[in-house]
C-alpha cells in the first residue's frame, strides 16, 4: 500500500500532473505521524500511511494555505477526509479538478492520546469517529490504495458518538448546563479547534471582530460559552466529523459531542441530511422547504 502510494506520487510529480503531494511522514515521536509536503520524487520516499495518520490533511487545501500551493495538488485522504473535500467542493472552496485524491482504504486511526504501534488496531484504541464509520473505502478518489473495505450497514445516528450525545441529552437542562459549564470552564481560548478545522475557513473570524467584540476574548465562563456555542453553530450541517477539533483541544473539551448533536438535529430536521456525501446538493442552511417544521414558533 505504501509502496504503491509512493510510486503513484512520484509518477504524478514527475509527469507534471501535480506540483505537490500532501501526505503523511513518520513523526518526530513514537506513535506519531506528521503532515508532509512532497515536492520531489525523493520526498515521496518519506510518504507513509498507518493507523497513526490521524490528521485531516484537507486543511491544506483551504484558502488558509494558499501561499504554499501552485497549481494542482494531490492529497492523501482517508474516507472521512474525502467527506471534507466534498463539503469544500459543495461550498465552492475547491474544484474537483484542482485536486487528485489519493484515497486510502482505512480501518481506523488511533484515538486521542493513544500511542499504538503496529498495524492491527483494536476498537478500544480507535478514534471514536471510526466506530461508526461508513466510508472505510472513500466515496470518491482518483486512485485507491489498499484493499477495499466494505463498511457494515449501520443504523444511522446510533452507536459511538451518537450514544454519547444521547446520554447528555437525557440529562435535565440544569444538569446539562452544569456539564457544559464544567467543560467550557477549562477552555483556554487557544483556538486550536477553529485552526485545525478545514471548514473554518473565514478570512476574518468572528472572534476577531472587535467593534463590538462579539465574543469576549477573555477565557472566562461567559466568553468561553459564547465561543464554543458559536463555533459549533457555524459548523452545523457542514461538520463532517473528522474529529480534528476534539483531538487538538488541549483542554479535553468533548467537542465531538457538541458537533454531533448538531449533526443529529440537522439529520432529523432536514430530510436526513448528512454533510460530506454529496457535492451537488444545496447545503441545508442556504436552502429551505416551505413545509419545514415550525412547531416551536407561536
Amino acid at each position: 500500500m505504501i509502496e504503491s502510494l509512493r510510486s503513484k506520487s512520484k509518477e504524478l510529480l514527475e509527469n507534471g500532473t501535480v506540483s505537490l503531494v500532501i501526505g503523511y511522514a513518520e513523526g518526530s515521536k513514537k506513535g506519531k505521524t506528521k503532515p508532509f509536503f512532497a515536492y520531489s520524487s525523493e520526498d515521496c520516499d518519506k510518504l507513509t500511511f498507518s493507523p497513526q495518520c490521524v490528521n485531516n490533511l484537507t486543511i491544506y487545501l483551504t484558502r488558509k494555505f494558499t501561499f504554499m500551493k501552485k497549481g494542482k495538488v494531490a492529497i492523501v485522504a482517508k474516507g472521512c477526509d474525502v467527506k471534507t473535500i466534498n463539503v469544500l467542493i459543495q461550498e465552492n472552496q475547491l474544484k474537483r479538478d484542482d485536486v487528485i485524491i489519493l484515497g486510502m482504504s482505512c480501518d481506523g486511526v488511533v484515538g486521542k492520546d493513544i500511542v499504538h504501534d503496529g498495524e492491527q488496531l483494536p476498537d478500544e484504541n480507535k478514534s471514536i469517529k471510526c466506530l461508526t464509520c461508513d466510508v472505510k473505502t472513500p466515496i470518491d478518489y482518483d486512485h485507491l490504495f489498499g484493499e477495499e473495505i466494505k463498511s457494515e450497514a449501520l443504523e444511522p445516528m446510533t452507536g459511538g458518538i451518537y450514544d454519547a450525545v444521547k446520554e447528555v441529552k437525557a440529562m435535565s437542562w440544569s444538569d446539562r448546563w452544569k456539564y457544559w459549564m464544567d467543560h467550557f470552564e477549562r477552555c483556554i481560548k487557544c483556538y486550536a479547534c477553529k485552526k485545525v478545522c478545514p471548514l473554518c475557513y473565514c478570512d476574518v473570524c468572528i472572534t476577531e471582530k472587535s467593534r463590538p467584540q462579539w465574543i469576549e476574548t477573555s477565557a472566562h465562563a461567559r466568553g468561553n460559552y459564547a465561543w464554543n456555542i458559536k463555533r459549533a453553530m457555524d459548523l452545523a450541517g457542514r461538520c463532517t466529523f473528522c474529529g480534528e477539533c476534539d483531538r487538538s483541544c488541549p483542554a479535553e473539551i468533548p467537542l465531538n459531542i457538541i458537533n454531533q448533536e448538531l449533526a443529529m438535529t440537522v439529520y432529523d430536521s432536514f430530510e436526513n441530511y448528512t454533510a460530506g456525501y454529496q457535492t451537488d446538493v444545496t447545503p441545508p442552511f442556504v436552502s429551505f422547504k416551505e413545509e419545514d417544521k415550525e412547531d416551536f414558533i407561536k
Partner: protein
Amino acid sequence: MSVNQLSEDAFYNLIDDLNSKGTTVVAPVRNEVGMVQYEKVTSSKDNFAFDEVIGRYSPKDAFFPQHETVLRYREGENGVEVKAEEPEINDTVLLGIRPCDAAAMISLNKVFTWDYIDNLFTERRKKAVIISIACNEADESCYCTSVGFAPDGKEGSDLLFSKIKGGGYLAEALTDEGETFIANNSTCFSKKDKSVELEPIAEVTDLGVNIEHIKRWLDKKENFEHKVWDDLAAKCVGCGGCTFVCPTCHCFDLVDEPYGDQGKRVKNWDGCQFDHFTLHASGHNPREHQPQRWRNRFHCKFKIYPDRFEKKGCVGCGRCIRVCPVNLDITEAMIEITAMES
C-alpha cells in the same frame, strides 16, 4: 544551605499545615478529564499527580494568570471614574513543579521587570515559595539537558525536593526564602539521615544541539529569510497551543470589556502564532504567513530572550511538542540549525 528530609506522611501534612495557616498551595492534580494541571489544593486528599512527568500547562498561571482584570471604569456623577484593580495576593507555595518550570520563572520575571515593573506579576512572585521536585522520569518530549538545564536543576527554586527510595523526600534549601520556609514548617522536616538513598534521576534525551551555535546562526541577517522556515513550518495551522502551554511565553493583550456605562480593562494571554497578533490597523500584516509567525516563536526562544533579557527562552519542558496537532517539533529545527552552523 541546609538539607533536610521529610517522610511521605510529613509531605502531605505539610499541605494541610500550609492550608490551615491560610497559605495558598498550588500543586499538580489530575482533573476530572484526566489532565494534570497545577491547581490550588485545599486538602492532602486531593487527586495529586506528583509523579506525572509534567503538567499539561505550565505553572506560570500562578503569577501571570490567563485572564485578569487590571482596572475598572464607570461613568458616575463626576465623569468617568477609574480604579486600578487591587487583587488580594496571598502567600503561595508552588509545591511539586518541575525544575524546568522553576527555571522558566526566572526568565518570565525578567520580562515582567524589564522596562516596566508589572506589579501584578512581581507581587505574586514575591509572595511565593517555589518547591520543585526533581524528575525521576522524563518522556520523549523532554529535552531540558540539551538547553542547559537538568531534571534535578536548582535554578529558580527556593527548595528542591528529591524522592527518597521507599518514600519521602530530601529537601534542599536553595535560597533564604527556602531556609525560612523550612524554619517556619519545622515540624514537617527532620535532619537528613546519612544513609538515605535517592531514586535515580531521570535520563533525558540528548538532542546533540548547541544553543550558542543556534544563536549565532539566528544572528546572521541572511538566515532570516532562510528556506528552513518554510520547510519546517508550512504545516503549522497557527493554533496558539504551543504559546499557551509554554512556561516562558509571556505575550498578553489588554482589552476593554464594556458593560453599559461601566466596564473592565482585562489582561489576557495572547500569542505570536495568531494571525491577528501583528495585524496593523491599516490592514497590513508584517507576518503575513504562518511560517513567519513560527520563525518569530523560534527567534523569541533562542535569540530575543538571550539578547534582550540575557536569559534562556526555552527550558526544554517539551510541552509545545506534546500539544502540537501537526507534530511541528521545535527540536527538529534546533537539530537542523545546529547542523548548518557546525
